[in-house]
């Protein structure tokens, strides 16, 4: 793998950048792999990377029906945080956070992970109880977190309306300084480049059209381009399309796919230096390194695979942003788009064995997928490598919806993020 550095840039500038190597190959698939990962988004690519790096399993293919990182990885609002309420999710997201903190160096690819802090605002007494509860749990779990009062919030976000004159005055916030944002596309590309260097094959524009299941166990996948490709184990990491793969495997999931929308303003000079999220007024915003205000909306209530949501959802979000930041009223909205989020009833993911042997699912991340990317890949890789679920993944079994051992994170995920 060609190593990246400032010096390398200088060197390549002398040859007019004509000698950069490909970041990943365009391979011809083998007939059989130890592991096939369906879905070349951030989670799938991270899984492949860690399979190779941590477990020495390099006979791996990632099959992606579009282009790498082209699903929700390319469509989210890039927020990273780990201040989840319940132990199970807190540990998982904190595991991801620790990986984030060294990811650029590990991948030799700058994913621009920017720990500019995440504020979750409270506007009601119950919001504040929930914030206290979550921060208390975070601290005892070793996750950074503080409860701030409006004065302290004002110091961090001087341009937000922290006064008493608003419809829902800000009463306080939780503050995770280690939280922040990352450059979403770079995460997929960095993992892909890293996996490729280990010999992982990434098959783009290749669609899995069926699964090959014999005696209750998966033995391969059928693709539109290359016919059947055999595999020892198969991991499905297809986010909003999980139901489609599950249908091929013959089971239902406790998942519904919904549109989730986001939007950006025109680029403006730096004015917001942290991530601001509000469940109650229902919106969240950060400012990218390019200057765009990156804004996330809530989920639409109906199922949809169209990567489009409802206009009123966007209107409500814009109202929330202007409620928090009245000065943004004259700023202009440049672009809006939608992704497909697969949501579980308890707002927690599924990282699980399935009724089909050797077929594993990693899905149901709802609005919380991006921030988990390295952690999700890491524990899923361990599970695929050993055939046994990683201890951190165990609570996220799809079978929890049978016995009732849910991990209800709605309080932490009331608004999309």
């Amino acid at each position: 793998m060609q190593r990246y550095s400032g010096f390398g840039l200088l060197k390549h500038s002398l040859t007019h950048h004509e000698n950069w190597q490909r970041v990943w190959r365009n391979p011809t698939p083998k007939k059989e792999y130890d592991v096939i990962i369906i879905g070349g988004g951030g989670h799938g690519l991270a899984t492949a990377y860690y399979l190779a790096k941590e477990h020495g399993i390099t006979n791996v293919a990632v099959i992606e029906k579009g282009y790498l990182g082209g699903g929700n990885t390319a469509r989210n609002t890039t927020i990273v945080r780990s201040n989840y309420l319940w132990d199970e999710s807190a540990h998982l997201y904190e595991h991801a956070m620790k990986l984030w903190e060294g990811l650029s160096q590990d991948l030799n690819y700058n994913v621009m992970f920017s720990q500019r802090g995440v504020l979750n605002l409270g506007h009601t007494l119950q919001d504040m109880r929930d914030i206290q509860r979550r921060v208390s749990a975070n601290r005892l779990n070793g996750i950074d977190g503080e409860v701030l009062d409006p004065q302290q919030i004002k110091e961090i976000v001087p341009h937000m309306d922290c006064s008493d004159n608003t419809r829902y005055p800000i009463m306080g916030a939780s503050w995770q300084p280690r939280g922040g944002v990352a450059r979403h596309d770079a995460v997929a590309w960095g993992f892909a480049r890293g996996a490729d260097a280990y010999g992982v094959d990434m098959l783009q524009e290749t669609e899995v059209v069926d699964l090959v299941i014999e005696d209750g166990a998966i033995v391969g996948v059928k693709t539109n381009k290359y016919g059947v490709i055999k595999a020892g184990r198969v991991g499905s990491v297809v986010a909003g399309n999980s139901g489609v793969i599950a249908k091929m495997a013959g089971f239902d999931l406790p998942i519904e796919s919904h549109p989730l929308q986001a939007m950006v303003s025109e680029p403006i000079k730096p004015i917001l230096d942290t991530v601001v999220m509000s469940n109650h007024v229902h919106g969240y915003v950060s400012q990218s390194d390019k200057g765009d205000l990156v804004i996330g909306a809530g989920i639409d209530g109906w199922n949809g695979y169209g990567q489009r949501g409802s206009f009123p959802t966007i209107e409500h979000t814009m109202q929330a942003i202007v409620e928090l930041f009245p000065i943004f009223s004259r700023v202009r909205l440049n672009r809006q788009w939608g992704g497909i989020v697969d949501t579980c009833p308890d707002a927690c993911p599924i990282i699980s064995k399935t009724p089909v042997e050797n077929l594993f699912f990693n899905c149901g991340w709802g609005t919380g997928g991006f921030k988990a990317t390295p952690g999700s890949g890491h524990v899923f890789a361990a599970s695929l490598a050993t055939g046994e679920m990683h201890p951190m993944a165990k609570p996220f079994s799809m079978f929890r919806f049978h016995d009732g051992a849910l991990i209800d994170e709605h309080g932490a995920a009331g608004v999309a993020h």
Partner: protein
Amino acid sequence: MSQKNRLGTGGRIDRTTPLKFQYNGKTYTGFQGDTLASAILANGIDVVGRSFKYSRPRGVVAAGAEEPNAVLQLGATEETQVPNVRATQQELFDGLTSQAVNGWPNVDNDMMSWVGKLGGKMMPPGFYYKTFMYPKSLWDTYESMIRKAAGLGRSPLENDPDTYDKVNQHCDVLVVGAGPAGLAAALTAARSGARVILADEQSEFGGSLLSSKELLDGKPATSWVKSAVDELAGCADVLLLPRATVNGYHDHNFLTIHERLTDHLADKAPVGMVRQRLHRVRAKWVVLATGAHERPLVFSNNDVPGCMIASAVSTYINRYGVVPGSELVLMTTNDYGYQAALDWHDAQRKVVAIVDTRQNPQGARVEQARKRGLNVITGSAVIEVQGSKRVSGVSVATIDAAGNKVTGAVNRLNADTVASSGGWSPVIHLSSHTGSRPVWDDKVVGFVPGPTVQKQLTAGGINGKYSINEALSEGVLAGLNALAKLDLPATEVVLPSAADMVEEASMTLFQIPHLLPTSKAPKQFVDYQTDVTAAGIEVACREGFESIEHVKRYTAMGFGTDQGKLGNINGMAVAAKALNKTIPETGTTIFRPNYTPVTFGAMVGRDCGELFDPKRYTAMHKWHVEHGAKFEDVGQWKRGWYYPKPGESMQECLDRECKATRDSVGILDASTLGKIDIQGADAREFLGRIYTNAWAKLAVGKCRYGLMCGEDGMVFDDGVTSCLGDNHFLMTTTTGGAPRVLEWLELWHQTEWPELDVYFNTVTDHWSTLTISGPNSRKLLSELTDFDLSNENFSFMDVHQCTVAGVPARVFRISFTGELSYEINVQANYGMHVWEKLFEHGKQFNLTPYGTETMHVLRAEKGFIIAGQDTDGSVHPHDLGMSWCVSDQKPFSYVGKRGMARQDCMRENRKQLVGLKTKEPKVVIPEGSQAVFDPNEPIPMTMVGHITSSYYSANLGHSIAMGVIKGGLSRMGETVYYPQADGRVIEAEICSLVFLDPKGERQNV
């Protein structure tokens, strides 16, 4: 300063109305009818911005929505600042104040340009992914440097003084674009009486006709425009919206139009006027007549000010009377491009050369040029531009027929303006908003709208039909099509016609070859605003970014505020060439709303400030305000939280309210509780199915508390329901849960048990609920009613009807405080009257108003739960120690019964709600605190529960708390620890939830 580029005559400007405006601190003059861009060009201003990455000087390129460079900061005051206004779309008004958004110390001399020049070579696409990683500790420093360069304009720092609103529209046909095709379509539809909306982003209707010299039926095209607009304006069901951009095309033919009502008048909307309006349109049919954007050609240094697209040159000359330079070189791949040179020549400025990339063009316009004696150089191209802040000359060379390489010697020509035309790209943005993929049309050399499920028709330029005659007839056809689909009668529209002109085929060419390979040639810009070059796209492709989405994302192409209107097709062509594919094989990108940026304020409308969300008030709200209440937001309700006296702290106030209630009598406005009237012979059966406890035997005139669970067995609401008649019940719900509970009841009734005879109606707003509570509440009530309030006649959990303060009332003897308590319900129109009468008579009992906080303390003293505070969707009734409220004897398997019998719900050691008493009586455990059994365990600690409610109880003289603890009900007397952020560890003993009057005697007196 004079307007050196202004022509003495011509154009649609009013030379008798001069307008002063400021640009970068200097005052200039333009005319009514100018855009800011035309006025800037008229005044000979070359540099209007600096590029994002390389800080290269940039000038005006285009004349409309596609302009990437002339993006300015507007606003005369702090509160009226608007970032990133496209000067080509901003009409000039007197006093307009504008500034370039980049450049230090100013846009003409930008120090950052040195960084761009020196470091530019080290900034290929995606360079930031490859560096700034080592040492890790310096990333924050690197990032703050990167961040400083962010952004174009700036946000205002003061609140917007203007108002915005939204209007919902319905129509038969929405016509987008009022050029020849749109006008023809609108006329056709309107004449049959269809409801038509015609919207156009420009200040005047007419589109390309406004800057055209062509004649229609021998008359100026604009005179036909005027007659068409006049006719439309006279139709009753036609809405004409100029200055209105259709920005988004959403599902089921829902479109949004951003109308700017005052931006052309002044900095701030004149008094009484709305600045901008968002029309939310539901159209039965849509006709997209959005036209096309001209493509510039990609050649070296094609971003030097003075480089423009050819049609923009014509527009400035013909519509604004401005010639944006002195000496023109035109490069074109097609006949249309010639018009710029013809217009330039007709404006009596020098056309240095027309450089046609085609070998032997002979079309009508070509011949016109030759006839005027213009220097037409064929089979050649401008391969490079000289100059930095303004074009000073060009290098022209012959190229091969395919346009792939330079074949001959290079000639230098002096010029200050280079117009280029690479053909036209249909404006297909709206058609792809709803997920329709555009399709490539080789004949058009561009993408045209693809198949769609929307009720959408297209006409004119969007279909690649660019001549006026074609546009007009396509417009009529679209109109007729729409009428046919709408079952409206067809109408006849007689069209004027323009003189036919022989058009020759265009050459399919995007990037002009240079002597050097792209990687070494001077920069050839594809996307000006994001500084994406042809070489950059090649690097991306070389590195394996082969999907066009990857190319886009890796290079940032199309991510500017112009969303790549000029550059996207050129970029795809460059990528296709690099990948050795065709453009359609490379794929297109999907356009998303907005077509052009929309003001946040317009998206928000009037749902901001005071109107952001409804404030719901009870009938006694005014009294609470007048008596100094602090309010708590509960859902949309404003509830009295506590009523501090002057100088009183919150705790002092609560102590007073709590004591007064237990010692004498307090009063609470409980009107916000949800109230649902239930009638029908099966009402009782229904209640039994929806609540966890039994309802079969509740007698008329009695009340009962009930818990409501989801099918998962988890508690989601609670309240008291009363039996008013054998078939008539009144259910109460939590304040926040009322709408959800009503929908829940309807869901079960309508979809699962329609055979049950029962009706539900909300009466939340109908009744005012005045709760008096405390040992003197009976005495107080007896002052206002003749009804026998004795315990024998009116016992606990009774409801009676009587007259209170002259008003018929339903009085419930139920208690959430554990005190003798009456909930007086009167029709809300009389709530205030009764409330005031209670105070008149309550003086002698020190009647004390209390709010939700005191209510919380008093109920916690009694261990009563608040659904939503002591529950969180993960606790069932047994977890709450409320098995007494669950009746598994009922014949019907009530909602939640099976759910709470699942394996995980039955396991040992679930978290259970208990009381908690601190070892230090005065210490109040913060709500939300997590509990541990072992305070010395290292982090991560094993958490065993948390505090749900916690207060200081003035009545008891110590703090009280409720919380869940693993296996808590069997751990009475044990100690748990609550480690705090400040290092304290609060010790507490697990105890019964009932802190006061465990036998419940006080409420039964």
